[in-house]
């Protein structure tokens, strides 16, 4: 029985360039308890709905976070469409899902690169990010932006993608598959990677359920929680959708879930490009949300389920807009996985959850 020591971890720490703080109570190199703290960069973006009308606010939502940029603009638009009962044209729904799934590919590749960097596999890190660059090029080609796309608006999308360009996207993704398979093999079958990830940050299915964790974190523990499964928006057009689930519950499982979700995203884009109907891409949205109207909406972001809530007051300015991001839901799970883990594993452990502090501190 060693002496208990408290080690402050963060807000500047070796995992991510994002400020999250943990008070790690250490006993003999083992973490006994971890107390999380965020809130270092809280920006109060939800309050800005009082300053920008509901059509301009979409540009603020995409600036909440660089990685989840398109997801937030899509989630916001879906919420306002539910609030004002707007029917979105089918082509716009398909295009939204295509961009959203491409965002998932680039987010997961970014995370896989960071993970490789965290366990010291520099080469793998570079290869992941090199591959991610092609997805960013698709974004730039189709919307004009690499990270902030400004593609989604309330009622539809801003730009159309010509059908031959859509087929071009599928060709680029098919071209990525070969190289991605090699990365996949390295992540899932290489002994050095598996040794580093297996058993790190274990969370059982029961714990995952009790702690209400979301996204790949939950799916790695065997919970098949995925909002895409409900077939909202363009996801309803998919012939079949099966969430990627792993039962190992540790860092390896989370890596496996994300790695396979990239392949799933490739397939979703391919299927939707085959099925996409022609037609308008934008529904005219006129007027303002009614007073005392309220709507909720959910979206499966790369990091998990994101919840949106909005309230109208009869003017063009919303009364309240709320984003509950996946990371704020996962922080409790994160502290539990840290209990009993080695001090040296703490950075890797935090990274396997893929925290996005920018989103959390909206």
């Amino acid at each position, binding site marked *: 029985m060693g002496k208990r020591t408290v080690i*402050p971890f963060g807000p500047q720490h070796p995992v991510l360039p994002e400020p999250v703080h943990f008070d790690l109570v250490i006993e003999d190199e083992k973490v006994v308890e971890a107390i999380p*703290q965020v809130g270092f960069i809280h920006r109060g973006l939800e309050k800005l709905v009082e300053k920008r009308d509901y059509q301009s606010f979409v540009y603020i939502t995409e600036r909440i976070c660089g990685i989840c940029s398109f997801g937030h603009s899509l989630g916001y638009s879906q919420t306002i469409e539910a609030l004002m009962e707007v029917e979105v044209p089918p082509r716009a729904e398909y295009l939204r899902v295509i961009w959203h799934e491409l965002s998932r590919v680039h987010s997961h590749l970014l995370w896989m690169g960071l993970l490789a960097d965290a366990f010291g596999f520099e080469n793998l890190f570079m290869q992941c990010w090199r591959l991610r660059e092609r997805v960013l090029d698709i974004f730039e080609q189709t919307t004009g932006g690499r990270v902030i796309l400004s593609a989604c608006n309330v009622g539809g999308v801003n730009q159309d993608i010509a059908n031959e360009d859509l087929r071009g996207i599928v060709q680029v993704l098919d071209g990525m598959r070969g190289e991605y398979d090699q990365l996949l093999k390295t992540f899932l079958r290489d002994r050095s990677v598996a040794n580093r990830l297996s058993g790190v940050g274990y969370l059982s299915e029961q714990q995952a359920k009790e*702690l209400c964790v979301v996204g790949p974190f939950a799916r790695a523990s065997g919970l098949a929680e995925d909002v895409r499964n409900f077939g909202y928006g363009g996801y309803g057009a998919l012939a079949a959708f099966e969430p990627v689930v792993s039962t190992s519950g540790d860092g390896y499982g989370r890596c496996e879930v994300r790695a396979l979700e990239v392949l799933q995203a490739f397939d979703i884009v391919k299927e939707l490009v085959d099925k996409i109907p022609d037609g308008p891409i934008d529904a005219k949205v006129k007027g303002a949300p009614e007073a005392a109207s309220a709507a*909720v909406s959910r979206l499966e972001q790369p990091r998990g389920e994101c919840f949106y809530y909005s309230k109208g007051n009869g003017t063009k300015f919303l009364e309240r807009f709320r984003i509950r991001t996946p990371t704020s839901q996962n922080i409790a799970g994160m502290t539990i996985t840290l209990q009993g883990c080695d001090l040296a594993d703490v950075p890797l452990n935090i990274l396997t959850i893929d925290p996005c502090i920018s989103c959390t501190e909206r």
Partner: protein
Amino acid sequence: MNPQVFKDIEPAQMRAEVESYHSRGWRFVQICGSTLPEGVELLYSFSDGEPLENLRMVVDNGSELPSISDLYLNAFFFENETHDLFGVSFKGIAIDFGGEFYTVSVPTPMNPASAQAADFLAAGAGDTSDVAGSGDNEAAPDAAGAADTTPTTNDNPGGEL
């Protein structure tokens, strides 16, 4: 399209309703506050796969509610947030930051009518020099190590699991 289910309840019923969701195995989604002229509207959301239900209640400024973080640990995030931004207090939060969760320059920025904001203004802290001073004070005690300034943990939530 997401289900839009809003159930209006009284704040006194909240704890019993949440316990009923917990016993049925529903997943906790979030707590959202929003400012009303007469107080703060709180929205508790729960989900069980596709079904999603929201409990809506209106509480007075400065009122105190029982915490639900003993049932759903991750509610500590939202209860601390609601306390810091709206001035609604919660009793017995699993990890209680005591108003130090967010670094804010004025108390309860989302609800200017709260009791904390009124105290702040009454203390003559409305001018900018004092606002900057109070920001420094808030940032300082977060440094870990000193036992009395680290957030208190009630009955070790992880141990129960």
